[in-house]
């Protein structure tokens, strides 16, 4: 039961045969996750204090990127742990109830939705695939110079510079086009191994920790029995496409495939 003046943070919903949590690992706000069972479903919840997670505090804290990052990681860590034990339907961050009764009521009211979502994600996991355009190692510096010398009647240093620069620009646009073409191929080929797929917008280089532009940021819902094929296809695509660098994340709880109005899943 939530302490006086506290809130119940809801992480997600699982089947009611989910094994209970045995240890005191930290959840959001440091409180160990616990479970509430109703309507044949188990909600994974945690108790959080009003001072940090009450309405006013939350509004303030959500604007604080450090707080948000820490909270998001804690929320995710719990869901990831649950997902290892069985299917789980993740709640969006900061789904809060004033008491256990509110959670129980929601499990009962939305039981059919939750069950439908659980069957969608059962024995499936989400995988994240990103592609970054690869900058070729100074493609035009050498060859561009030679071309300029052969081609033009102009031999002045200014003209040579401009022709070299033009070759560089052409090369970089070619690389960009090749990277986009590769991204489309990668996306399409991997879709063949997935139940469903979603696009995310490319991430800013700062956040992604990469210098080169991201040209693909996709999520796939993959049946566990095909996960091996999926990762093997990734390795194969990595070897075949030299204009993109591919990265794989996962397995994730199926965040990207349970939201409302976004394909199958609860309303």
């Amino acid at each position, binding site marked *: 039961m939530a302490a006086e003046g506290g809130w119940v943070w809801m992480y997600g919903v699982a089947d009611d045969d989910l094994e209970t949590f045995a240890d005191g690992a930290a959840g959001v706000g440091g409180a160990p996750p616990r479970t509430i069972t109703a309507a044949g479903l188990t909600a994974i919840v945690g108790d959080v204090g009003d001072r940090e997670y009450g309405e006013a505090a939350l509004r303030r804290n959500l604007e604080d990127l450090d707080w948000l990052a820490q909270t*998001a990681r804690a929320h995710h860590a719990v869901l990831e742990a649950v997902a290892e034990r069985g299917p789980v339907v993740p709640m969006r961050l900061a789904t809060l109830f004033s008491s256990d009764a509110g959670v129980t009521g929601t499990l009962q009211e939305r039981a059919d939705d939750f069950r439908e979502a659980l069957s969608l994600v059962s024995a499936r996991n989400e995988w994240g695939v990103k592609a970054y355009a690869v900058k070729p190692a100074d493609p035009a510096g050498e060859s561009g110079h030679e071309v300029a010398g052969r081609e033009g009647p102009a031999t*002045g240093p200014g003209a040579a510079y401009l022709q070299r620069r033009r070759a560089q620009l052409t090369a970089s646009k070619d690389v960009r086009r090749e990277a986009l073409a590769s991204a*489309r191929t990668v996306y399409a080929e991997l879709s063949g191994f997935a139940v469903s797929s979603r696009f995310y917008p490319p991430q800013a*280089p700062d956040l*992604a920790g990469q210098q080169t532009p991201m040209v693909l940021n996709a999520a796939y819902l993959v049946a566990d029995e095909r996960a091996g094929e999926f990762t093997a296809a990734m390795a194969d695509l990595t070897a075949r496409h030299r204009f993109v660098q591919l990265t794989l994340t996962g397995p994730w709880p199926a965040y990207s495939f349970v*939201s409302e109005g*976004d394909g199958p899943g609860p309303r």
Partner: protein
Amino acid sequence: MTQGSLVPAESPGLSPGPISGPQPANLGDILERVLDKGIVIAGDIRVNLLDIELLTIKLRLVIASLDTASQVGINWWQADPWLSAEAANGSNSRELEEENRQLRSRVKALEARSRDGG
């Protein structure tokens, strides 16, 4: 009963190969999922949902840099991937032609100047 820690090891996954093994999730990966996705149900702090909508928009500006998108000429995840990409390629070639035209005239001007000088 399983006794393990609630905090899992990084990307347990399948035996990662040297090339494409799962990478640790970055903050952007986590934020775009826990804020933008996941089931939305009306908890008891309802006003919070609106706050998160606004927050999500703000974060989009951080996570999805518009610079990055226009830099690589892509918007194809928004609509039909194939059609939009064609459009992007088309505009790239036009841009390139214009650039080439400007460079050619610049070359001419420089050649003329170097003849005059020499």
